[in-house]
């Protein structure tokens, strides 16, 4: 029934297409994204130039999205950049969800831990996400793992708050009270009765985190505090293209287009999931329909 929703269909299809592009990048007419050739600098999209392979051999290559000021193929870089963006988005979202769920369950169900945990979370939320991320990357070496941690940390409080709020409502449900009177241990109640009933809203929240993580990774790279410039990421490509944006806009345009489409697709998927999975919203929509009709 989730698949009946058009937002889910369009968002999902776009994401599947992007993932396939990322996986199949080596077979889609790309070259090694780090290769450059001084002879092919600043080519317009579609122009043919040459690429010097690692063994020194020079081959002719059509630059579908043009080349940058080092003579690197933007098309290859954007496609390989998709891999980085998706990996960062997915892993950061999963990490934030896992830690946020654990903290939220504890805060929602164990009263004495609530105040302490939530004040820590409030503390994290008081610092802008981008500042935390920059600080974390500055503390350690800029690597894929560091960037993922840097992006996940500011998202944890949001997940914690959501899970805590859900737990606070679900723990009042009679079936949880029934489990208590059946002598079910607290741990089993949290994992067996409460957690499974938070899945739907968490899935929705997870997609939003994923979209934000992809954006944040691009922002960090663009600012030069993300992944090292030799790794092709959308943010890095845009950062390098920025200086000659007026003369060669394609350097910024293509990675920007991919980024926009990806974030839009993830958000559409999230909206669609929210519409189909949240029963309260479905009810509200049904009654809004009645009002529409009689307005």
């Amino acid at each position, binding site marked *: 029934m989730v698949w009946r929703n058009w937002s889910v269909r369009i968002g999902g299809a776009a994401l599947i297409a992007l993932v396939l592009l990322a996986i199949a990048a080596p077979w889609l007419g790309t070259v090694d994204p780090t290769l450059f050739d001084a002879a092919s600098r600043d080519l317009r999209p579609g122009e043919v130039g040459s690429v010097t392979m690692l063994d020194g051999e020079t081959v002719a290559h059509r630059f579908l999205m043009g080349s940058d000021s080092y003579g690197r193929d933007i098309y290859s870089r954007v496609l390989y950049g998709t891999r980085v963006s998706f990996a960062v988005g997915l892993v950061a979202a999963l990490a934030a969800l896992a830690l946020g769920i654990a903290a939220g369950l504890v805060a929602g169900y164990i009263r004495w831990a609530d105040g302490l945990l939530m004040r820590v979370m409030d503390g994290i939320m008081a610092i802008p996400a981008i500042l935390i991320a920059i600080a974390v990357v500055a503390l350690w070496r800029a690597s894929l793992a560091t960037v993922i941690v840097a992006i996940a940390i500011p998202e944890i409080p949001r997940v914690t708050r959501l899970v805590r709020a859900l737990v606070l409502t679900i723990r009042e*449900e*009679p*079936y949880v*009270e*029934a*489990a*208590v*009177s*059946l*002598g*079910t*241990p607290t741990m*089993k109640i949290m994992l*067996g*009765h409460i957690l*499974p*009933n938070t899945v739907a809203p968490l899935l929705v929240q997870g997609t939003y985190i994923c979209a934000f993580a992809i954006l944040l990774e691009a922002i960090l790279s663009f600012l030069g505090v993300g992944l090292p410039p030799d790794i092709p990421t959308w943010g890095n490509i845009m950062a390098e293209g920025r200086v000659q944006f007026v003369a060669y806009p394609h350097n910024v345009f293509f990675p920007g287009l991919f980024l926009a489409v990806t974030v839009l697709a993830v958000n559409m998927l999230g909206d669609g999931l929210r519409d189909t999975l949240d029963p309260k919203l479905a009810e509200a929509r*049904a*009654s809004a*329909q*009645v009002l529409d*009709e*009689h307005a």
Partner: protein
Amino acid sequence: MSTLEVANLTVRLPPGGDRAQAVSGVSFGVERGELLCLVGESGSGKTVIAHAIMGLLPKTLALTAGSLRLEGEELTQASAARRRRLRGSRMAMIFQEPMTALNPVMSCGAQIDEVLRAHTRLPQAERRARTAALLGEVALAAELAGAYPHQLSGGQRQRVGIAIALALEPALLIADEPTTALDVTTQAQILRLIVELQRRHGMAVLFVTHDFGVVAEIAQRIAVLRDGRLVEVGAKRDVLERPQHEYTRMLIRAVPTLKPRERAARAEAPVVLATRALSKTYVERGWLRARREVQAASDVTLEVRKGQTLGIVGESGSGKTTLARCIARLIEPTRGEVRVGGVDLARLKRRELRAVRRRVQMVFQDPYRSLNPRRSVGEAIIEGPLNYGVPRSEALSRARRLMELVRLDPAALGRYPHQFSGGQRQRICIARALALEPELLVADEPVSALDVSVQAQVLALLEEIRTRLDLAMLFITHDLRVAAQVCDQLAVMQAGRIVEYGPTARLFAEPQHPYTQALLAAAPGRNFAFATA
């Protein structure tokens, strides 16, 4: 000419429902000055009919055939603008839930005024006078015009709802279960008000309800609905005393009588539950506010013997649910003792408590929320035994036996709660509670959410289980009819205190406390002997 004439009304359900039509070929009329009760169980289509007349059907329900005439005017052909004009002025509706039917951010006076502004060109001063007059008519002080819905009680809110409906003197008043959310004493007042207003204004009233007590109290004519079809229409006495249709007979027979059942007193049976001076105080602390204490239950002392049912009756807020939760130790009592088989549950530490929890098991009010939607009913029933170290295979065979005991197919253990009806779910909840072989069963309004015919079955099942297993039962209810049928002893609660406590038969025959007397006097349809038809 009838005020309302419904002929061959048919409303289609979206495909994939349990039947093709929500309402099929329903015809009836309501005359001027007449009160017709539309009775049916949940899902019978009674609310759909009310909404169809008002033109409030959701898009998913299509009116496919039939005619609706209001004072001779065909509503199904009328334009949207014309119907909007008629709504409020010629026909008006009062709703079930008075809290949600009113706008929380508008004062009550403004909400009455809104109707007058929308439909008339009266100047402000006249509208204000009319608002005050309407409030007077529903027996509310004119000052309440400035009050917001949350400042009023449930009964007062419903009176405001009625005042809004009456604002333009409609010819037809549709009341959709207007007293279902109210306490019994408030219900009695609202019913009296509706009947009185109907007489004074000569309105036609279509009163939608599931409660035969209410029907017996106020109806002039009765229409009985079942699965979207009209089963029987007739004058009140004819339908109640000489029902023609088997379904009507079954419904009327299922209504418990207010006459307590004869029971053998067994004073020598051992005491299972004894509370002494049990109290629960809720303390509200604010940084900037004074400390506030609410006595949810105070000094409750009672006793239940093996094989006996003690009923706790009271209105909402009387503390009966708090009491049940204290006894099951779902919440911590503030003071007093809860002795179950000689152990004081109130004093036990968490760890010690786990071992004795199994002795007290609960059945909750809402069968839709008391089962985890993501667990099969088999998992739900064996959860308790597994917690106490019973091997899985043995727990499962116990679950199968329990399913038979509650008259469900043991093969259904693998199914999920949403695949069962409300009555079946309540049976599952009973089986789950019995799986731990408790000494005391605490049932918190176990049949309030159920239809009357299902309610009768579940009550019979509880009764059978109590005698077969010789259980002690604490039965919490707001419904005196139910209490009369299942309880040996009754404790009447008001504002956290037990005001009267004794054998059911004596309490019904000679109520001592004024509150007990008021409750009995307010029971709808008390002059009509049900369960005899």
